[in-house]
């Protein structure tokens, strides 16, 4: 498998606080990779380092090219980051959210893409004029995903999509992510507290502990190792 994303000894800090110490990981093209770990382990910061929303050092390469600059540059390079806590423009309509998703694109196929994306979320077509803030939490999370797809991303970053959602909605969300991966070859790096659900969609996973990679393996291995599950994954 071709390596799409490579992090080499990445460090990141919030002011004086160092949040990541030498995190290295890779994501292959068409792969779903999970980043797990406790609160404060640096999961969210890892995604922020990739999209350039936190000051970082070390090597970050997308498709062999170094990622530099802020989130605008990352978006242009093909990274769609769905941040923690939905990440929709609540004051704008569903359609406007989708149009913004396609902001970096210059081609004229945006309209067809709204249809393509609506195929995964049929309710979107009927509620295009509705303000995103009036959607339910689950729908907002779906919209955030739909908006990310509108950019035709090379790499999708998902930050804690299960947060605050009912278990059924979480399952539906991850089922959609898996569909997207299988049908369109979408590459995903997903950060999750809910290790069980994340391991069920991913092929490999990294477990972070206080800003370092504590262990890594295939999702099947991690799931089956009871000691790992108990000490790192909490189930």
């Amino acid at each position, binding site marked *: 498998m071709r390596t799409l994303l490579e992090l080499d000894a990445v460090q990141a800090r919030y002011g004086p606080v160092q949040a990541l110490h030498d995190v290295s990981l890779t994501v292959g093209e068409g792969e779903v990779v999970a980043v797990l770990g406790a609160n404060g382990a640096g999961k969210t910061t890892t995604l922020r380092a990739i999209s350039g929303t936190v000051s970082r050092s070390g090597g970050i390469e997308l498709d062999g090219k170094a990622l530099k600059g802020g989130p*605008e540059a990352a978006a242009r390079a093909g990274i769609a980051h769905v941040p923690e806590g939905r990440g929709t423009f609540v004051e*704008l309509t569903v359609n406007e959210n989708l149009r913004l998703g396609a*902001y970096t694109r210059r081609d004229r196929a945006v309209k067809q893409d709204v249809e393509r994306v609506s195929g995964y979320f049929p309710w979107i077509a009927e509620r295009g004029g509705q303000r995103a803030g009036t959607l339910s939490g689950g729908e907002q999370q779906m919209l955030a995903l739909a908006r990310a797809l509108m*950019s035709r991303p090379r790499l999708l970053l998902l930050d804690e999509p299960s947060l605050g959602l009912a278990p059924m909605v979480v399952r539906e969300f991850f089922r959609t992510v898996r569909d997207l991966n299988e049908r369109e070859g979408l590459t995903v790096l997903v950060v999750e507290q809910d290790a069980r659900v994340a391991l069920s969609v991913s092929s490999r996973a990294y477990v972070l502990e206080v800003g370092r990679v504590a262990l890594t393996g295939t999702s099947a291995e991690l799931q089956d190792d009871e000691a790992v599950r108990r000490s790192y994954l909490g189930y």
Partner: protein
Amino acid sequence: MVVAAFADFMQQVVSGLAAGAVYALLALALVIIHRSTGVINFAQGEMALLSTYIAWALITHHDFAYWPAFVATLAISFAGGVATHRIVIRPVEGGSVLRIVIVTIGLLIAINGFVLWQWGGEPRALESPFGIDTYDIGGVVVTANDVGTIAVAFGIVLLLWALFQFTKIGLAIRAAAVNPHEARLVGVRVTWMLALGWGLAATLGAVAGMLTAPTVGLDPNMMQAVLIYAFAAAVLGGIDSPVGAVIGGLLLGLLLNMLSYLAQYEAFDWFSEELRLPMALLLILLVLLVKPSGLFGRPEVKRV
């Protein structure tokens, strides 16, 4: 008798709408900046004043016809607004709101000083592009200037609405204003969008200034009262609501002219033109006390 009273009333309605249209434009400028930068731009009136002087100078000293001067002034004002954000506002953005407010007050004083230094304090005449004709529509006499003012203001508001609603750049400006972090994640260059917002606000102000000058007369104090009316209009409509700013402006213009009209009756004979400005301030106070979010604003939710 009744017919004459009705005609008089309608005339006041039309001229109230014309005045209100100007308040609406400047109020809209205030709202655009408040939405993106989070402050009231106290320099908005003086920026409009400077634009109007530029239009006047182009016509008087550089042989421009009115409409080419109008368009050139809009372009210059837009560039000036963008530059103001890049050079003066951006360095203090992200800090406390008070810092930005102080900078806009400094800008107010600086621009006013510049205008006085460059063009002096004596009143100048910027003629109405619509002429001095009056039309008699079924006994209601309306001036060409009022009709033209209303038409230009509505045209500009429509253009702006279309820009925000239908274009990619307009959507990006709105996105940058309501949620800058998210906007950056989808690739919007937020600081440039905020600068464009300042440019648009400066352009709206320029239109307001150029529409004000023919009736009020161009002098360095011209926009001070208009800015207060625009504050009142923006507060009445809801300081974060563009629709509110437009409706607030029109309502304020109508309200003040209704008072002028009613002053002929005994119950309102206390009202005279000097009370227009205090009435606007009273309105600001009332709205802030009774319904701080205004007619169209949403109650403030603290964004974290």
